C-alpha cells in the first residue's frame, strides 16, 4: 500500500528515494518542454531509449524526460549527469555517439556544445553557460532534475517537506505570517501581497466554513509561457503550494483553472494529482494530520479575460467569463459567494520554497518592495530566447545582453515590452532600469505575468500598439462600454494611422480616448489596455508623427506605407521571385534585372524572403 499515513513514513520514503538518486549511475536528462518538443525532443528521447535497450545498458544509465530547462533557443537540450555536461541542438542521429562517447567513455563531443557568441568559446557545463550562470533558478531549476510524471522524483529532491513542516510544526496563522514576512507578491500580474490575500480569505466570514483555493493557470499573455512550463515540468511544486495554502486558509476544495491550449500541462497535472492521491498526499486526512483537501481541474479556452479573477470565477460557475465589480473581492466573496483565494501558478510554486528556507532568507532576495525571483519569458528579437528566472531588481540591460545574448543580426535594440497587453514598451534610454513592480509601473509599464518581448530597429511601434489593441478588442468580454466601444474606436484610429490616413489631432484623440478607457472600464483588461498605446506615444511620439505627417513608416513595416522594389545592381535575373509571386507582378528577362509592378504588388514579402542575393529593397 503506497499511502503514506504519517510524517514518519513520508520522511523514510524521501530518504530512500534520495539515496537511490545518489547512485554512481549516469543519467541522461532530455528536455521535454514544449519548445524542445517542437524541435523533436520526443524522437531524441525515443532514440536514447532504443539505443540503451539495444546496448543493454539499463543498469548503467538512467534516462529521463524532464520539464522545460528554459533555454528554448537551443533545443533539444540534453544534460548528462552527474557531470552536468550540456549538449544543445541534439538530433536523434547524435544519440549513439553521445552514448558511446559521453556516457561510456566520459568524453565530450565538442560539436554539440554551446558556443558563447561573445567569447567564441565552447562551454561544457550547464552552470557555466552565461544564460544560466546569471540566473537564480529557485523555482524553475528543479524542472531539469525531475520527470514531471514521477512523484518519486519530486519526493527524492525533498518534495512535500514543506507540506509536512507546515502540517506538523506550524499553526495556520504562523504559515500566513511567514508568507506575509517573505514579501511574496502575486506573480500573475496584479502583484498583490499574497500573505495579505491569504489572511483576508481566512478571516472572511463563511457561514458553513467553506473556503476555496484556486490556481489561476489561464496564462493568456501572448509571448508568456512560464506557467505552462511550470505546470508541465514540475506540477507537484504547485500542488504542494496549494496544499500549504489550504491548510493556512482553512479550505478543503481547490481548483486549477488551466487553458485548454496547454494539453500537456493538463495531462501532467492530472497525473501528478492522481499520484498525490495514491500516496495520501491529497484527499482525506493527509498524512493523518487532519487536513482534507482535493483539487479539480477545470479547463478554459480561448478567453484571455478569464485570467481575471472574477471572470475566472464566473467561468467556474458555468457562465460566460464576464468580470464582476470588485469590491467585494474574491477573497471575501468569490466562488459561489464564498471566500476564495486565487493565486497564479508561479506564486503557488514559490510557497514551498519560502516554507522550506524561511521568509527571512527569501526576503533578502530582490528589492525593498519586490522580494524573491521572477520567471520571465524572454522572446522576440533576442539571441537567447527562453525562460529566465532572475532576482527582482536586476537591470534590464543584464537580462537583454548578459543573459539574452543581445539582438540577432547585430541590429539595434529599440524597446522591450513587458507585462503583455497590459504593459508598456520601455525604450533604450531606460535600459538600466531595475526590474521590480514599482519601477515598471513608474515608467508606464508593469510586471504582468512576466512576458518580455524584445524589439529592434525593424519593429514599428505604432504597429505594436495596433497589435495589442487588436488583441484586446478580440479578447474583450464586451460587457462595458469604454472597453468594448472605446478599444474598437482606438483600433480604428491606429489602423488609419498605419494606412497613411492619420490626421492632425489623432495622437491627442488617442490619448484622450485611452485615458477614459483606463479610468472607467469595469475590470483590469480595459483598465490596462491603454498602456501599450500611452507608453508608445510617450516614448516614440515621433514615430506616430512621421506616420501621420509624412505618411511614412520608418521601420518599413506598415504595408500601406512601403513599397517593394528590386535593386538592379544586385539582381542576377535568376527569376525565382517572378515564378513564386502570387500576383505575377514581377517581370524580367533571364539573367537581366527584374522589376516589380507596383500596381499588382500586394507586399506579401515573398520575393524578399526568397531572394538569395538580397536584391529586394523595402522603402
Amino acid at each position, binding site marked *: 500500500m503506497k499511502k503514506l499515513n504519517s510524517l514518519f513514513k513520508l520522511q523514510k520514503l524521501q530518504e530512500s528515494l534520495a539515496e537511490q538518486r545518489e547512485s554512481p549511475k549516469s543519467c541522461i536528462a532530455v528536455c521535454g518542454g514544449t519548445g524542445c518538443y517542437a524541435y523533436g525532443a520526443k524522437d531524441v528521447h525515443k532514440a536514447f531509449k532504443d539505443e540503451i535497450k539495444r546496448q543493454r545498458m539499463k543498469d548503467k544509465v538512467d534516462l529521463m524526460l524532464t520539464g522545460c530547462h528554459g533555454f528554448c533557443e537551443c533545443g533539444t537540450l540534453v544534460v548528462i549527469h552527474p557531470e552536468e555536461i550540456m549538449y544543445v541542438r541534439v538530433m536523434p542521429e547524435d544519440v549513439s555517439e553521445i552514448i558511446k562517447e559521453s556516457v561510456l567513455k566520459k568524453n565530450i563531443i565538442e560539436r554539440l556544445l554551446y558556443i558563447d557568441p561573445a567569447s567564441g568559446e565552447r562551454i561544457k557545463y550547464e552552470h557555466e553557460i552565461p544564460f544560466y550562470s546569471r540566473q537564480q533558478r529557485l523555482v524553475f531549476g528543479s524542472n531539469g532534475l525531475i520527470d514531471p510524471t514521477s512523484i518519486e522524483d519530486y519526493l527524492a529532491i525533498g518534495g512535500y517537506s514543506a507540506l509536512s513542516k507546515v502540517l506538523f510544526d506550524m499553526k495556520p496563522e504562523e504559515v500566513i505570517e511567514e508568507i506575509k514576512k517573505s514579501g511574496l507578491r502575486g506573480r500573475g500580474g496584479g502583484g498583490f501581497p499574497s500573505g495579505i490575500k491569504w489572511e483576508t480569505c481566512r478571516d472572511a466570514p463563511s457561514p458553513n466554513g467553506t473556503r476555496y483555493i484556486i490556481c489561476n493557470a489561464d496564462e493568456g499573455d501572448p509571448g508568456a509561457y512560464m506557467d505552462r512550463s511550470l505546470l508541465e515540468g514540475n506540477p507537484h511544486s504547485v500542488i504542494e503550494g496549494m496544499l500549504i495554502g489550504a491548510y493556512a486558509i482553512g479550505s478543503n476544495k481547490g481548483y486549477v483553472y488551466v487553458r485548454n491550449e496547454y494539453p500537456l500541462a493538463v495531462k501532467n497535472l492530472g497525473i501528478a494529482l492522481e499520484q498525490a492521491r495514491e500516496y495520501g498526499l491529497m484527499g482525506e486526512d493527509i498524512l493523518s494530520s487532519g487536513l482534507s483537501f482535493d483539487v479539480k481541474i477545470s479547463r478554459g479556452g480561448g*478567453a484571455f479575460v478569464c485570467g481575471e479573477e472574477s471572470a475566472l470565477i464566473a467561468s467556474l460557475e458555468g457562465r*460566460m467569463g464576464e468580470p464582476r*465589480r470588485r*469590491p*467585494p473581492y474574491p477573497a471575501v466573496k468569490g466562488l459561489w459567494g464564498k471566500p476564495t483565494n486565487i493565486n497564479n501558478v508561479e506564486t503557488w510554486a514559490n510557497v514551498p520554497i519560502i516554507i522550506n528556507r524561511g521568509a527571512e532568507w527569501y526576503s533578502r532576495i530582490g528589492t525593498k518592495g519586490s522580494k524573491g525571483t521572477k520567471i520571465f519569458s524572454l522572446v522576440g528579437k533576442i539571441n537567447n530566447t527562453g525562460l529566465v528566472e532572475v532576482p527582482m531588481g536586476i537591470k534590464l540591460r543584464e537580462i537583454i545582453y548578459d543573459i539574452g545574448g543581445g539582438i540577432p543580426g547585430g541590429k539595434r535594440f529599440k524597446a522591450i515590452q513587458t507585462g503583455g497587453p497590459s504593459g508598456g514598451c520601455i525604450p533604450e534610454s531606460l535600459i538600466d532600469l531595475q526590474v521590480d513592480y514599482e519601477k515598471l509601473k513608474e515608467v508606464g509599464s508593469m510586471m504582468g505575468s512576466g512576458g518580455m518581448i524584445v524589439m529592434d530597429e525593424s519593429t514599428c511601434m505604432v504597429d505594436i500598439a495596433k497589435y495589442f489593441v487588436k488583441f484586446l*478588442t*478580440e*479578447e*474583450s*468580454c*464586451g*460587457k*462595458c*462600454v*469604454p472597453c*468594448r*466601444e*472605446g478599444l*474598437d*474606436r482606438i483600433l*480604428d484610429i491606429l489602423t488609419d494611422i498605419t494606412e497613411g490616413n492619420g490626421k492632425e489631432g489623432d495622437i491627442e*484623440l488617442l490619448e*484622450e*480616448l485611452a485615458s*477614459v478607457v483606463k*479610468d*472607467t*472600464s*469595469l475590470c483590469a483588461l480595459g483598465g490596462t489596455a491603454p498602456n501599450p498605446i500611452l507608453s508608445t506615444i510617450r516614448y516614440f511620439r515621433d514615430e506616430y508623427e512621421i506616420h501621420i505627417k509624412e505618411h511614412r513608416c520608418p521601420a518599413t513595416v506598415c504595408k500601406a506605407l512601403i513599397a517593394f522594389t528590386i535593386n538592379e545592381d544586385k539582381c542576377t535575373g535568376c527569376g525565382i521571385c517572378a515564378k513564386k509571386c502570387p500576383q505575377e507582378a514581377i517581370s524580367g528577362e533571364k539573367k537581366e534585372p527584374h522589376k516589380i509592378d507596383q500596381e499588382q504588388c500586394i507586399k506579401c514579402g515573398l520575393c524578399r524572403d526568397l531572394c538569395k542575393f538580397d536584391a529586394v529593397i523595402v522603402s
Partner: protein
Amino acid sequence: MIELTIDGIRTKAPEGMTVLEAARGIGIVIPTLCYHPGLSAYGACRVCIVEVISENSSSLDASCTLPASAGQVILTNSERVKKARKVIIELLISSCPNSKTLQDMASRFGVNKVRFKIKDKGCILCGLCVRYCKEQMQSGGIGFVGRGTSRKVAMAFGVTPEECRNCGGCEWICPVCGRACTAGNLVNGLCGGCQNLMPVETCPVCVHCSESVGAKGHKVY
C-alpha cells in the same frame, strides 16, 4: 449606518446601499442607462461614474455598483467625471445613434460632436432585457452571446426557447427599442433637434428627459 460625503454633503446610508442610491436619497440624480431599481445592478454602461477621492489619489467608478463605505468622499459632477462621461456618451452614440434616450443625454451633457466612426448596432448592450427576463420573469429565454464587439442579445440558435413567456418585457424595458429619435435626420450621428437644450446645470432633477428641453421650457415630473 454608514457615513459618507457626496458633493460636499455629509449623509448616512444603510449597509449595502450603493452610492447611486445614497446620492438619490439626498436629491442628487446621477444619470444612468443600464440601471433599474427593480433589477440587479450591472455596471455596464459606465454613465453613472463618480469620482472617489482618497488621500493622495482619486479614481472613477460606476456608482450603481459601488457600495457606500464609511468615510467615502464622492464627487458626482467634477470636471474629471464630466469629461469622461462625455466620451462615454460619444461612444454610445457612435454605436447606436438612433435612440432618443441617447440623443437627449448627448444634448444634456454637452456632446456636440461625434469623432468616431458610426457603427450602428441598434443596441447598447445594457442588459436590461436579459436581467428582466431572468430576474423578473424567472425565465432565461434571452441572453448575451458572443464576445467583444460581436456581443449581442439573442436566443439560443436563433430559436424562441420554451422558457420564453411571450411577456414582451424585454421590449418594454429597452431604452432604445420603440424610442427612436424622432427628429429625422442624424447629422454625423447627432440629431439636430435637441441642440438648443439648456445645459444640465439648470435642471438637476430630471433623470430621463423624454421631452425636448430648451426654448420650449420643460416639464418636471
